[in-house]
C-alpha cells in the first residue's frame, strides 16, 4: 500500500470510527434526536449532511488561501448556507417526500456543528482531495450512526423496518424524545465500549511486535594461558 492510499485510509477510518461525529464527538445531536424516528428519515438526513459536507469541504479547501483568517467563520457559514439552500431546492424539486419529512431539520443543517467543525478543523488547512475524502467519510460515519438509531427506534416504536411492518407491536416510548435520548445513550456506550476494546487489542499487538526476544549472550572463549 503506497503512502497516499494509507493517508486516505486513515482519513476514512477517522471519519467513520475514531472521530465518528455522532457516537464519538456527539455533534449534530439536535438532528440526530429529531430525525431518527424512522430509518428512512435518518438515512435521508445522513445523506443530506454528507452531500453538504462534501461540497462545503471542497469549496472551503479551494478557497482556504484566499479567505483571510479574521473572516473565516462568516465565510464558512455563507458557503455552508449556500450549499444547504441548494440542497433544499433539489430535494423539494426531485424528492418532495423526503423534503416534507425533513421539515425544519433541513435548513437547520446550516448550523450543524459537524459541518462547521470539519470546515474549521480540516478543510481550511488541507488540500482539496483530502478534504473531499474527509467530507465523504465523516458524512458516511454520521449516516451509519443516524440510520442505526433510526432502525432501532422505528423497530421498537412502530414494529417496522424501513417502513415495512414486520412485527405487530409498538412501544410508544421509543418514538418520543425520551426514547431518542435512551437509544442514543445506549448506542454511544456500546460504540465506545467496542472501539475501546479494538484499540486495546491493537495496542497489545503493537507492544508484542516491539518486544525483542531475549537472545542468549555469546559464550566468551577463555584464552588458554600457558
Amino acid at each position, binding site marked *: 500500500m503506497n503512502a497516499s492510499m494509507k493517508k486516505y485510509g486513515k482519513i476514512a477510518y477517522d471519519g467513520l470510527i475514531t472521530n465518528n461525529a455522532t457516537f464519538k464527538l456527539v455533534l449534530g445531536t439536535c438532528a440526530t434526536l429529531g430525525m431518527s424516528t424512522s430509518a428512512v428519515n435518518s438515512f435521508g438526513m445522513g445523506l443530506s449532511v454528507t452531500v453538504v459536507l462534501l461540497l462545503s469541504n471542497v469549496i472551503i479547501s479551494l*478557497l482556504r488561501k484566499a479567505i*483571510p483568517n479574521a*473572516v473565516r467563520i462568516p465565510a464558512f457559514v455563507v458557503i455552508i448556507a449556500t450549499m444547504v*439552500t441548494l440542497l433544499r*431546492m433539489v430535494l423539494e424539486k426531485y424528492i418532495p417526500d423526503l423534503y416534507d419529512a425533513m421539515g425544519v431539520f433541513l435548513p437547520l443543517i446550516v448550523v450543524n456543528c459537524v459541518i462547521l467543525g470539519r470546515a474549521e478543523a480540516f478543510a481550511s488547512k488541507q488540500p482539496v482531495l483530502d478534504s473531499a475524502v474527509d467530507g465523504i467519510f465523516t458524512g458516511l460515519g454520521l449516516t451509519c450512526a443516524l440510520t442505526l438509531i433510526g432502525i432501532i427506534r422505528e423497530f421498537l416504536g412502530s414494529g417496522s423496518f424501513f417502513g415495512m411492518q414486520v412485527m405487530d407491536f409498538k412501544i*410508544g416510548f421509543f418514538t418520543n424524545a425520551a426514547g431518542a435520548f435512551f437509544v442514543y445513550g445506549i448506542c454511544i456506550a456500546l460504540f465506545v465500549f467496542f472501539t475501546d476494546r479494538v484499540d486495546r487489542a491493537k495496542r497489545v499487538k503493537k507492544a508484542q511486535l516491539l518486544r525483542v526476544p531475549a537472545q542468549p549472550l555469546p559464550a566468551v572463549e577463555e584464552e588458554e594461558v600457558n
Partner: protein
Amino acid sequence: MTVKAFFKSTAFKSLAVLIAIVLVAGALLAVCNDLLYVSDEERFARSLAKIYGSEVTATEVELTDEERAYQNGSVDAVYYVEEDGNYLFHTTGTGGYGSGGTVTLWTILTCTGSREDGDLALTGIEKVVYDSNSGQTLMANFGDAFYAVFEDADELVAGGGNFSATDAEDGLFNLETGATYTSTAACNAVNTALACFRTVFMGGDA
C-alpha cells in the same frame, strides 16, 4: 491611514473576499432557484397524486371570504373531482399546540346527488391526508390509524355529527399519539370541511 494603505490592508481584503463570496453565492442561488422552482400547479398536482395515487381532474369551486371562515378553522380551497363526483377540501384547523398552532389536511367528502339539482347529500369521508402544520412537534406520531378513524365514521358524518379529539365516550381517538392539542387541530380541520359542505353546498346548518 491613506487610501492606498486602506486598499492594501487586511480589513479591505476581508471585506472584499466576503462580498465576493456573498455575490457568487447569491448569483448561484438565483440561477438554481429559477431552474428548480416548484410552481403552485406542480405542488397541487403532487398533492392530488399523493391523495388519489393517480392523475385526476379537479376543478376549483369558487367561495366567498365568508364561506371560507369558520369558528375553528378555515377553508383554503375546495375542488370538485370529475372522476368520482366527490369534493376535495383543503382546510386548516386551529386549536393546535402552542400559540396559533394549526394542522392543514386534505379531506375527500363523498356525496350523492348534485349541487345543481339541489339534492346533494353527504355520505361520509373517503380519505383524510395530512398536508402541513404550524408549530406541531408531535405530528410524526400521527399514523394511518389516526386518519382511518375519520374514514370509518360514515354514520357520524351522514348524521350531521362532528369529530372531537377529547370525546372519550365515542372512543374515536385514543391518546396513542400523545398529542391532544394536535389531535384537536386535526379534528377541527375535518370539522371545517364538514361545516363548509353542510352550509355552502347543502344549504343547511353547520
